[in-house]
């Protein structure tokens, strides 16, 4: 067993998950590849969404993959950082919006 949970070299082996369940693995990668094709959203926009989501779910493989993908697409570091702030704002907002619940509770309980 590896001494660490994450190894950057494992990212290249992602496709191997198909070996232990070909049907579902293939379905997943077909779906995955379709998702990132040009559609109503451009592949470029989808790459930035993926980067922001990768940081939200804190997946090191995804961060590695979509930082590289962004560079290949010519996405600038400024654009990447802005997309992360969208993730950060939603994450922070998700905590703070519950503040209303806290305020409601305080208002109900306090005399």
């Amino acid at each position, binding site marked *: 067993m590896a001494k660490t949970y994450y190894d950057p070299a494992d990212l*290249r082996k992602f496709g191997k998950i198909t070996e232990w369940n070909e049907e579902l693995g293939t379905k997943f990668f077909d779906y995955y590849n379709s998702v990132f094709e040009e559609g109503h959203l451009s*592949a*470029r926009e989808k790459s930035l969404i993926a980067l922001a989501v990768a940081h939200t779910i804190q997946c090191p493989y995804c961060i590695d993959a979509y930082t590289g*993908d962004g*560079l290949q697409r*010519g996405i*600038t570091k400024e654009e990447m950082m802005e997309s992360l702030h969208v993730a950060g704002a939603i994450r922070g907002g998700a905590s703070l919006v519950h503040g209303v619940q806290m305020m409601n509770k305080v208002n109900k309980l306090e005399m």
Partner: protein
Amino acid sequence: MLSKSLKRRESELANTKRQLEILSNGIFQDGELPKFNDKIAESQQFPLKANLLEILQINVGYMCNQVCEHCHVDAGPDRKEIMTRETMLQCLEVIKKTGAHTLDLTGGAPEMNPNFRWFVEEAAKAGIKDFIVRSNLTIIRANKKYHDLPEFFKKHNIHVVSSMPHWTRGKTDKQRGDGVFDKSIQALKDLNAVGYGIPDSPLKLDLVYNPSGAFLPGDQASLEKEFKKALLEDFNIQFHNLFAITNLPISRFLDYLIASENYEDYMYQLVDAFNPAAVANVMCTNTLSVSWDGYLYDCDFNQMLNLKVNSKVKHIKDYNEALLTGRTVVTSQHCYGCTAGAGSSCQGVVA
């Protein structure tokens, strides 16, 4: 930012034998990654053969006004290798008799060769269908004596192919040097002003995009769309096509990969992206590269690794189409750069 070539710095990578050792050792020696010839053999494409010549690429010298970090030529102001008029005359003999449809002048900054204009004037008389000059753009603004280059190019119906690593200042200057972006923008405006790059204009202006780091180029058509939109909106600049070219792991780019500890990951990227369909159209199958001193190579990259053609004919003065056609292309692991993804050549993607 770099100011001197590897050669001037007496770097061990200025030695082409050392570069070839690196490209065959380590991950390729211990079998972690397959060697290029073994890889193409898997798809029955070994050995790679050169077909009839279509593109004659002539490197008129390694001198350049820029010292770009990724330069595979190791070009710069300190490089003194310049093609003489005598060698140019030998090239002209071949240009006159070859059936090649494209003549491609490169460098360094080809315009810095003192015989550049004479050579262009003489070569243009041969009436080759597509006459390319690879211009780094900034040379046009580098000195007053170059300011009229757009008019000169126009007069001889030159197809201008220019480097532009990004549509933003930051990324461009990081790869090519401070101030390069602004000078390039001005040069593109100068070229547009005489009719280059305008839709439907016969004066062809194409841009070359190289990634500014240890990653592969993205989809050429998408990048072209981004470049066109940004350059038009921000600077009212137009151009025809974008060629996305992969950086090959040689010379200064190899030096950068090793120094930044990206070498192995980059080679993995190239090998993982290997595309057998790109092999059939790699440029060495229809190109011949001539060095400043007249020697012949399968491509400009092999020229920089001093891998001369595998033929009895090794010099332009002895040019013999029958002997050169069908020769086996000389390869090493840098060749993975031309077969990754959609493939890469001096004319962009190949698959």
